């Protein structure tokens, strides 16, 4: 077996083979270690794949040796290699983190299922990213979503609202996925192919209503999946009541992958010759991105629950990504890709910090954070640094995102958007500052519901969390990986779509 040649399929094969076996493992430590091991193997495969792609260019892998456009193709270029790296990297950090948190938050009998489902969820997300076949996107999307519903519902041990949240997510997610399939059906009817590259070829010149409708269905379907404002209503509850590890993982990856799908469809399947693409940029993505940035940030400001606050903040951050996209320039696309990566780092770290607090205080209400700096200083600082990153303070990844986004806005001539971007980060300043103030300047509760021992979270949680925090700083200073790669990826995507490079 030639490992390099088989590399593109390994990120899928490794976790998907490992996942069912977790079901057979005894409860307790073993499923966790097993899942950890395979998440790291997957990460290693993704790193190798990324190195391969960035040195030799796009890779196409033919499943079952059937050549595209007939066979299913895995197509990896820089854009999805970056997302693959991100998803598997976050997974590699979340899996070790999960153990103690899951012990507390998930029914013990369900732990093998939990790790199995988390592996499958990761597989699904990786699959969505890696595949070059449009229908395959749907299949993988549903794999990740179905396991996601189950994972969210497992939070029911702590709060029964997890069940209703999961149910609502299921309904919305299924509608979204079905819309996506309708869109694919229309495209298939118009072209007779489902391979993305082939679709792109055959769509050239087909500016008819069927293609338009297909695009609209795909956009709305993915919009539901990625919680594009105003289709975000499922997200806050789902993220709030899911087990902490699940929230950290999904917040960092699931919506990002959906954004990636939109990018892939807009730039690699459709192209700028379609009038409706331009219209979608101007009349859909731009206003919705801006509205999401503000409305969601503003709602986040008034949340008593830190997890829910961060969930709304995620909706706002998705607004940034869509905004970057809507400029339809290389800079804008670069900004979106960079922000996809960076936001995953900061939100992952933030939700992990909340998970640590939940472990000790048993609550993610803001009152549980009172005086946290005196009880869990290590966690507090992790939260603060990633919070600063969310605001966009220099030397953190958030700043890099803001910089790219602002630059894109000014260069695209949308200078007003530039000011709206910073205005929205000021709201982020307000809501992060609110938590920071409670953590730093309030006295901890001595008794009552939020009293907790002066005890740090266990190292098994702190180390993964600080790995992400360190990444927040590292990638805030070194942007070769994010900025450089994202720019190259954006240029490729842009030239595919026939836009100005």
């Amino acid at each position: 077996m030639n490992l390099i040649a088989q590399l593109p399929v390994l990120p899928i094969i490794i976790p998907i083979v490992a996942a069912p076996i977790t079901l057979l493992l005894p409860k307790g430590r073993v499923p966790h270690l097993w899942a950890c091991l395979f998440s790291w193997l997957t990460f290693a495969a993704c790193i190798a794949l990324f190195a391969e792609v960035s040195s030799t260019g796009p890779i196409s892998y033919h499943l079952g040796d059937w050549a595209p456009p007939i066979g299913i193709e895995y197509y990896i270029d820089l854009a999805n290699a970056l997302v693959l790296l991100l998803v598997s990297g976050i997974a590699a950090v979340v899996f070790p983190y999960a153990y103690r948190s899951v012990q507390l938050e998930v029914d013990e009998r369900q732990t093998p299922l939990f790790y199995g489902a988390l592996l499958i969820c990761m597989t699904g997300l990786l699959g969505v990213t890696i595949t070059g076949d449009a229908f395959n996107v749907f299949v993988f999307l549903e794999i990740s979503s179905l396991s996601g519903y189950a994972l969210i519902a497992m939070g029911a041990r702590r709060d029964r609202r997890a069940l209703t949240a999961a149910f609502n997510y299921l309904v919305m997610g299924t509608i979204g996925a079905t819309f996506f399939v309708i869109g694919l059906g229309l495209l298939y009817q118009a072209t007779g192919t489902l391979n993305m590259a082939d679709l792109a070829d055959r769509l050239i010149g087909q500016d008819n209503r069927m293609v338009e409708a297909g695009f609209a269905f795909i956009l709305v379907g993915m919009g539901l999946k990625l919680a594009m404002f105003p289709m975000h209503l499922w997200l806050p509850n789902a993220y709030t009541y899911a087990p902490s590890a699940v929230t950290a993982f999904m917040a960092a990856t699931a919506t990002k992958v959906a954004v990636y799908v939109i990018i892939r469809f807009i730039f690699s399947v459709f192209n700028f010759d379609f009038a409706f693409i331009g219209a979608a940029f101007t009349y859909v993505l731009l206003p919705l991105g801006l509205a999401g940035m503000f409305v969601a940030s503003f709602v986040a400001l008034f949340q008593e629950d830190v997890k829910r606050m961060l969930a709304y903040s995620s909706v706002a951050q998705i607004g940034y990504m869509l905004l970057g996209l809507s400029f339809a320039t290389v800079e804008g696309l670069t900004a979106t890709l960079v922000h996809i990566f960076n936001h995953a780092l900061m939100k992952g770290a933030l939700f992990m910090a909340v998970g640590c607090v939940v472990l000790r205080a048993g609550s993610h209400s803001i009152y549980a954070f009172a005086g946290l700096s005196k009880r869990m200083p290590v966690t507090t600082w992790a939260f603060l640094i990633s919070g600063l990153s969310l605001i966009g303070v220099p030397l953190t990844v958030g700043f890099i995102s803001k910089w790219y986004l602002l630059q894109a806005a000014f260069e695209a001539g949308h200078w007003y958007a530039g000011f709206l971007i910073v205005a929205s980060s000021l709201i982020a300043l307000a809501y992060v500052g609110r938590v920071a103030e409670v953590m730093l300047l309030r006295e901890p509760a001595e008794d009552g519901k939020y009293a907790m021992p002066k005890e740090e979270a266990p190292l098994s949680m702190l180390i993964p969390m600080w790995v992400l925090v360190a990444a927040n700083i590292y990638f805030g200073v070194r942007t070769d990986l994010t900025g450089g790669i994202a720019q190259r990826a954006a240029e490729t995507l842009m030239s595919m779509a026939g836009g100005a490079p």
Partner: protein
Amino acid sequence: MISAELAIPLALFLPLAGFIAIWLIGEKSPNLREAATLVTGAILFSLAVIVFAAVAGGARPDFELIEVIDGLPIAFQAEPLGAMFAVIASGLWIVNSVYSIGYMRGHGEEHQTRFYMCFAVAISAAMGVAFAANLFTLFIFYEVLTLSTFPLVTHYGDAKARNGGRIYLGVLMATSIGLLLPAIVWTYAITGTTDFVAGGIMAAHSEAVAPIAGVLMGLYAFGIGKAALMPVHPWLPNAMVAPTPVSAFLHAVAVVKAGVFSILKVAVYIFGVDFLHETGAGTPYMWIAGGSILLASAIAMNKDNLKARLAYSTVSQLSYVTLGAMLATQMGVMGGAMQIAAHALGKMTLFMCAGAIYVAHHKSLVSELRGLGRVMPFTFGAFFLGAMSIVGLPPMAGSWPKFFLMLGAADAGQLAIIAVLMISSILNVIYLLSIPVQAFYMKPAEDGAKPQGAENASIQWGNLKEAPILCLAPPMVTAAGAFLLFFFADPLYEFLTPLIGGQ
């Protein structure tokens, strides 16, 4: 002898080493901890002097740390203005540290370790601002400075401190992220660089910049919230909840100076004085600065709280620098630059005196100070000299910047500005000089506690009740500095000449 190239990175990292040392020593041995602070300060000052000497010799030592985004390195380069700022900040930091020791111990404050740690980070950030070779680097250290001083402002942790801290952080971050960052990115988007270049980078892209130059200048003028141009000044009075050494640090050593320093840098090295003059982009802000000068002085007159009065005085004085930059004449810039130095010494003196009064007698209202001069003659003597410098009376350093600013205003043909400067000086006299005069010559009010000896008609040496020597000596040193600077204004002028294009 350390080369100037090496001195720059050392100046940045040394305070961080001091930070770690302070952290490790902690409460175990306060003396050792303070020694660490002072040793760091002393070395830092000598490093700054090395750079200063090199710059005086015409060198432009530089250092590049890392390239963050293509074309956007974190890089440093010393030039006259920055070198001057570095020397002032690091020199006053030593004085401030000595004073802090006296104040904090005299007051029995808590969390002293955290206090000194934050100071160390803040001074490092101030060095970064001073030596920044481009706007990007400047912005980074500007934000670090804001964040590292936040724990200092909220030092007491009570409701008042929380509120003050909220305003402090809110205004500074809101202006820097909301206005300064877009301004920098905009500049970068237009010119493709953020480097500080003698003569400015805008002139080469004048076609693109000219229509928006006014807007851009506004973003800088208000975005650099630390310069406290009205109406973005509220953070400054609200930060007065902090212990006095912090106030001194904010007002004299680093924070506000970093603000006006940034404004000067932008005016001189980004816009370029000539370009600014041609486009007239600075004119509206010149008037705002003028208004700010008068308005803040007027408010200061009505403040009975000594620290609040000094705070508004700072708002007013800072606008001198902004005014100098916006005049867009060589003399204006020179006046602004010298004002940084002169005001640092003068205001430092005043704040430390205020703190000393508070430590010795727990008085914080101006009206309570009557007669106190007879008990604290050294403190009020220093206060008097500092106030003279701020007002701009010879033989104190503060007279030179006023002189140059008037020259600059005359050059620019803005006679009204000269009037503003004159009125401001008169107001300064009223609200600043009246304090020592009252303290020395007036009897204390009938009601309220009277320090023993305050009612005496003259100073009786046996009745003196001065603050501890560590609180008393620093203001006297800075007052003396302000006095000396008056006579050494020419070397400073020579040193700063490259700023205005001279050799």
